[in-house]
């Protein structure tokens, strides 16, 4: 599964857990829009750290940066992960 699909699948699982079965596009805001909560953001951080060796420590973290699938994919492009598994 590529990074976009994996991210999308993870977002889907978070939404399902929150009881939200509405569809969403890759550009849809999920945190700012209120569909997901900050606790979900923490789960997403852990997912990115554990699955893709992301390290957010060396730059300011802002929840907006993981607000949508597109935002997270942009982080992959930015190279926040050290050594992909």
């Amino acid at each position, binding site marked *: 599964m590529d990074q976009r699909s994996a991210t999308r699948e993870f977002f889907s699982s978070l939404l399902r857990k929150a009881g939200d079965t509405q569809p969403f596009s890759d550009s849809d805001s999920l945190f700012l829009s*209120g569909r*997901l909560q900050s606790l979900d953001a923490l789960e997403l951080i852990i997912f990115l750290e554990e699955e893709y060796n992301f390290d957010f420590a060396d*730059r300011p973290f*802002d929840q*907006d940066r993981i607000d949508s699938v597109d935002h997270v994919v942009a982080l992959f492009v930015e190279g926040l992960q050290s050594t992909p598994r």
Partner: protein
Amino acid sequence: MSVVSSTAPSPTAPPVASPSGPRSWKPRIVPQWDKNPKLVEQAATLEGRLALVGLFGLLLFLGLPLTLWAWTMAVLVAASVLPAWRWNLVTVGTLGTGIYAAHARFAPGGTALRALATWGTALIAVVLFGVLIFTIAVKWPRSGVMKRPVLSLNIFFAALAFAAAVIPLSRNIQLGVQFTLVVLAGYLWYFAYSLQDRLASDRATAFHQIGTWAPFWVNASGGGTPFCKGAAYLRRIEAKTPQELAITQIKGVKLLMWCLILQFATVLFIQAAFESPQGLRLPDLDGLIQTGRFPVWYMCWASLLANFIQTVLLMTVTGNMFVACCRMAGFRALRNTYRPFQAASIAEFWNRYYYYFKELLVDFFFYPVYIRYFKRHRRVRMFAATLAAATFGNIIYHFLRDINLVFTLGPWKAIAGYRVYAVYTLLLGCGIGISQLRKPLTAPNQSWSGRALASVRVIGFFCLLHIFDYTGRDHSITQHVKFLLHLFSLG
């Protein structure tokens, strides 16, 4: 930390006609005009926008002094007619309210410290310092102190304040430096959000950043908590289409109406609880704690509960009024306070009670700890980050906000006298931390009574915690503990 957004008003979504009939009807104090497609369509036109701003102005007239009201309305009308110029207008509006605020606050007749200042020095000092550090941060975003700009800013400020308090200087220079620091203290967290924006590819210019430093919608109440955060957040929530703007402005009008209703209710409540001879005539909580002379236990409970409700009501009115003005300027901001008494957990209450302060603590204290430390221990990681925000961040924020006390009392007294609030933040941090580690007190399908019981427990916790919510420097911890014990007849 869970955020209020799950329960806060949803973002601007296209309205759909709701099915008619008795089942879909629900009595509301403020009608849901934003859900009416016809009304939204009309509000999306220029005439509609002006009508909305006019209505908003009539309501706002009840809540602001005339000069400030006229300036705020001028900015809102201009932003409604020329939405493409919104950011420039916000900056102009903010500069105008900055002048008004400085003049109102530092007009002659104050203390010697205040009398020295003029509105000009206050505004120039704030703007120049902010522009300087933002420019440096943009030019060298990852070098030296700019790797951790907010931490550096706070250390720099604290060191400067300490130096200004202890280094002997001529009286006038000392007062000038101290005054400048007092003014800057109110803007520290606005600067922090601007510094965070330095790495964004679409970051706002220095001119537009100025517009977000105590923006005009905080009604010249000065610095402190950045209502509606900084430029980065505002870019994300800006209404992009006429329809989005229409819904946002309708929600602004609705929120202001709600604020005014609550303001009226608050006045009635204060009269009934404390002031009216025909009312309960409850004793003042602060006075009770200060004197240590307590009436019977149930009067103390009543005083505590009434004081707590009053605090929540005032926070709701003030904060949401700022948000209503921000919405009228075209930003889809979430409410500051949203049904706090419905919270089913301690963490949820804190979210619902003071959203933008919580966001500040999350952005600048929670996440920095969470993404760096205890990564292998999830529960420790969560608890440590929560303590960093609700305890440590909370203390730092209030200490720097009231930096004038360092100059008037001296550094040691200002620090040592802070003990009561330190206890408050420690209890708050532990409460939220434990609340987040535990399973929710209520399940989605829990009975009404189950939810009510959870809410009562949460309100009980915050009500008792309210005893220690004291940022002054005069009380001892013992005075507050004595009051707590008296509530349970243990004094």
